[in-house]
């Protein structure tokens, strides 16, 4: 497919839908987690208010060029990840720019945002940012191994790296979904998914409710607003990826909303039930059972 200007318009449309969906998810999931803890939870539209508030703040400081660019990298990473994936199967409008690259592009592009963000956080000079980055990178490298093995297993199963073709092969009934036809790869992927969502037990990177740590430590006002926009978009993009790989993709927006909601819920369920791992524990954990599932998935191709 060739690049045409209308693709930009369609991309913006996708982005708009996903952004709103993401913001709403960001409101609902904490509410669910709170209800589990017998609390009331925030308002479902709180993320909207947060973003508007952050953008409206008057005090804005910067520590340097890289610091300024950090959120730009982050949000570009999130938007890019979304743009490089076909969102709605069979739809020319919502296929985005997936004709630029296949599954490997999507897998590697997520690091674009991570890297840029880490650099931005580093320039602030705050040691907690750096500690958070070190933890985050350690965890990410560990979870990538079962993820890679699972992806290879799926790619070999369908004989292709094109996401659209993988989705196409899963059409025609629930039992065609990869999670059922290749359960071990699915298990490896879903366990890696837990790590990449950054909820408990893998939330030591940001260590919420404990200490201000991690890349966002020094970010505020407009910067934080941009980061929060990303926090809406990036997880949804990842959810869409997993949905495409394991759950048969989506042929319409409602189907997408439902499927991604339940995939997200999986990480929330695990998160509310488990305490936090230390970094070395999570590294070792990923190289234990998830890796085993990945290896079995490869052996069973």
């Amino acid at each position, binding site marked *: 497919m060739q690049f045409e200007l209308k693709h930009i318009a369609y991309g913006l449309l996708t982005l708009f839908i996903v952004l709103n969906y993401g913001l709403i998810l960001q409101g609902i999931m904490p509410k669910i987690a709170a209800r589990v803890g017998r609390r009331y939870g925030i308002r479902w539209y709180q993320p909207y208010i947060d973003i508007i508030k952050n953008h409206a703040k008057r005090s*804005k400081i910067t520590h340097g060029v890289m610091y300024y660019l950090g959120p730009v990298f982050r*949000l570009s990473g999130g938007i890019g990840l979304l743009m490089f994936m076909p969102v709605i199967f069979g739809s020319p409008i919502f296929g985005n*720019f997936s004709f630029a*690259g296949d599954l490997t592009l999507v897998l590697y592009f997520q690091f674009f945002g991570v890297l840029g963000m880490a*650099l931005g956080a580093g320039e602030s000079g705050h*040691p907690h940012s750096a500690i958070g980055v070190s933890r985050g990178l350690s965890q990410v490298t560990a979870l990538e191994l079962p993820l*890679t093995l699972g992806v290879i297993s799926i790619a070999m199963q369908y004989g292709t790296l094109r996401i659209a073709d993988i989705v196409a092969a899963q059409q025609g009934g629930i039992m065609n979904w990869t999670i059922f036809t290749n359960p071990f790869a699915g298990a490896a992927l879903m366990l890696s998914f837990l790590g990449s969502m950054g909820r408990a037990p893998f939330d030591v990177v940001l260590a919420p409710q404990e200490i201000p740590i991690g890349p966002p430590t020094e970010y505020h006002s*407009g910067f934080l607003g941009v980061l929060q926009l990303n926090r809406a978009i990036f997880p949804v993009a990842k959810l869409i990826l997993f949905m495409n790989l394991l759950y048969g993709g989506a042929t319409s927006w409602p189907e997408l909303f439902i499927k991604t909601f339940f995939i997200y819920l999986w990480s929330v369920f695990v998160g509310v039930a488990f305490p936090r791992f*230390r970094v070395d524990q999570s*590294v070792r954990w990923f190289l234990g059972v998830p890796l085993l599932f990945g290896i079995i998935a490869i052996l069973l191709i």
Partner: protein
Amino acid sequence: MVNPIHIVSIALGVAFALGFLGKREKLALGVVYSALAAMIAISAGWLSHFWGNINEPIQIFTGGFKPPFAINLQMGLAESVFTLLINTVGLLGAIYLAKELLQAGKNMMIVFLVLVLGLNVMVMTRDLFNLFVFMEIQSIAIAGLVILNPDRKSIPAGFKYVIATGLISGLLLLGTVFIYYFGGTLNIDFISQESLLYVKGGSVAIFLVLLSIVLELKPFPANGWALDVYEGAHPGIGALISAASATAGIFVLDKLMVFGNFTFYNAISIIGAITFLASNLLGIKQENTRRLLGYSSVGQIGLIMTIIGLKPYLGENTKFIALAILVSHYLAKAGLFWLAGIVNADKLKDWGAIRGHRIYLFLMGTFIFTLVGFPPFPSFFGKWQLVMQLANNHHFWLLAIILLGSLFEGVYLFRWLGYAIKWDEVEQNYPKIKLNQFIPIAIFAVLTYALGFYFGELSGYKSTFIYIAAAFIAFLYIVDFLLVFIKNTLSIAAMGFYLYTNLSSYQSYYLIFLAIFVIGGIITLLAGYTFKGKRTGFYSLVMMMFAGLIGLLEARTTLEFFFAWELMTAGSYFLIIRGKKSMEHALSYILFSVGGAYLILSGFGIAQIGHAGMGLDILKDVHYYAPIAFTLMAIGFMTKLASIGLHIWLPGAHAEAEADVSPMVSAILLKAGVFGLVMLFLSMGPQKLFGIDVLYVLSWIGALTALMGNMMAAFQEDAKRLLAYSSIGFLGYALFGLSMMSHLGWLAALALVIMHFLFKALLFLAIGGVVMRTKTKYMYQMGGLIKKMPFTFISVLIGIIVIAGVPPLTGFGGKWIMYNAIMEKEWFFQAGIVFFAGVVAFLYCFRLIHTIFLGQLKDEHRKLKEAPFWMLFPQYIILIIVFVLSALPNSLLKPIGDILMPYFPAGALEWHGQLALSAYGYWNGKLIMVIVIGIFASVFAWLYIINRKAQKVGQFNIVYAAERPSRPETTHFAYNFFAPYRKALGFLVSPGITNFWDAVSDGAHAIADKVRSIYNGNGQTYLAHIIAYVVIIYVLINGGF
């Protein structure tokens, strides 16, 4: 032609005449010099008579009768060569010892002349008893000369020499007497071995004669007395013993071997091989200069004995090989002993004093490389022929022993050279240049280069390029006094000229390596403009290394390839040892390199069995033991590649090198190993060793190397070590890709190799600039440098994005191709490790950039300047290349794909513009770049709109929860950056392999220590050794009494 008898008459006559000169010592010395010069002239005259003509040797009759009733001397081609050798070192030795001879008086000069006389006659005589007499003369003369300067060591040494050689001569006499009894004649030509060997007594007699000659040549372990003599004697005399006396002894052995039968030949070769191996092993432990040279001498003579013993197998080649090695030994040993006399340092570690005069250091280096067998010296060609012939005869065990012995020799010789070049704790008593001592050494050095050229011609070595390069290197050495600016420009111009004139003759994968070696070389040389002053010695060494690299590409025969390989190794060794703390790392580097080179040499040897020529295409058609040859060569090349198990030399060598040497060795030199593997794999294809697919094993090695390298890199505190480990990791990918033997695998490997060159040069130059400014290598001592060195920051940023393989930059292309290659090949487990390694790379990438450029700026760095312009300029050239390749991946990958088509026609990528299609997926580099830039620009615009009034704040203006950050050192998180990761996975990087090699080295030292304790210094014990040796060898040869 002067009658050769005049060699004898002149020496004898002058010796007697000296008695008439009274106290006129200087005149006496002059007369001695004239006599020796006349003897040289006679020998040289005969040499020119026999050279190139097939003239029969002439017989000189004495006493008026013909043999066997009188003694006759023979002068043939061999005799003329050997007498010339003896007389030359005699004259030069006498010049060297001028002061000592003058001091000792004309009696000593007489003894000196008598020694040379005795050696000459030993060579020329055809009569056994005459031989005995002159051997006695030689022994007594040496004994006299040993105590030239009487001191605590030389007198006992002289005494031990006397009693040992007395016993040996006694054995010779005994044998001679019984040969006369059983054979009826004393003339060598008339003794028929058959009649003698039928009789029991006759065979014992022959045995005694031959073994006494062998004992004169100091075999292990009956050579304790010899080592004490070498240690105790004046070095000038040591030179004579080693060069002249041993030379004559070798000739005598060869002369008398006509008596021996096949068993004797085998015995001699085994004795020689054991001597060579044992002496060099024992030399490892040695710390005394002269004793070390003694071990080396004994070892080399053992090697030559082996060659003589192999005459039945080597046939026509025996002369060439033996002479090449003998001449190298002769020149180098004499040279080194003479240098030892000048430097006057008993302990090896004190040899740093030689640095007082660079020329002496150059001479020492020349001789040491001659001994080890590096090109362009004669020993290189001798060893080459020896290996080829041993392989042809399937003598693989002997080949292994000889190469192992050579490696041991390399250990102590290079360690010694390292002390001389680098060791700092030395008293500054530099030797002065005395002309009479300098000239002999210089002459021998010139001779070793000249003879190296000559032996090369005889070997059929022809390389116009190397000759031109050698001339250019010599030229650079001569103009070393010029400024860096001029020499650098000359070097760059030379490389550019080579590229311009030769580009059209390059094709296929040679083009890729040409680009890396030559264009890459020019780019890294640009950084050399940073240095001010003269940078003495640097440019000839750099050009030596690049000459070797280009020589690899130009090589059309295995000999040319190996020559270039060793040349490259030598040049890079000298470059690496220039680093401030490089002494032990350079030693480690050269030992691993030499070991790997010997494996390659063995592989070439096995490959050429049954072939007439030595072109590189013999690799395509290996007749015997192909898998073994393949494995040996692969391991040899992998040593250069620093694959896991063979990698411990790399981090130290690359990290401690100078700022512009590191990019050269890490980005460019390692690719020589890749070139070797490419050539090997394409020529020989997949091989099965004992039923195991070698390439499969290599794929695992590559994957594990990638993981190990990247993980070790993540844990380093030293920036340059981090980059060095990163190189190890990346070359693991390359090995993995190559072992796939598929189109996509090779595309990935070669693309990664080029990318590795680009970003490694980029990063080493950048970090080199940082280290130059901050004067520290440790990352936790840096920090916040983005404000001071923004251009360097950008270089490093791009570099690490390329390593990480993050789109849109070019690193991603390599990863995409690798994914497809693996899916095609179905090597999933290795793939998992490789991709895991790829992700681990993020760790060190981030650590590198964060701990140096981000975080907190230290107080002492507040006034830091940006890196020098000439360090930045090559970095930005590379940056431009990286951007072009990222936007237009077609420009790199399509040509490589085309190059690979003839070898791997199946599985290529389909290109539609910048869109690449494979069987599994697709990738459009340019489109991705455009989209990413578009999104980035939009988001940036958005952020700018909302935040354009952002206020820049000071360094410590951070959220710190009501505390105040006190100092940058306590606020910059950099030390032990990945502590939890290390806690979780640190067991993977425990130094098992380092411990292994340490254990090997310690084991060798321990064995050497234990074995050398037989040399207890007691002369009587040495006599017992000799007698026991005779008995044991007799029993072993004859299987009983």
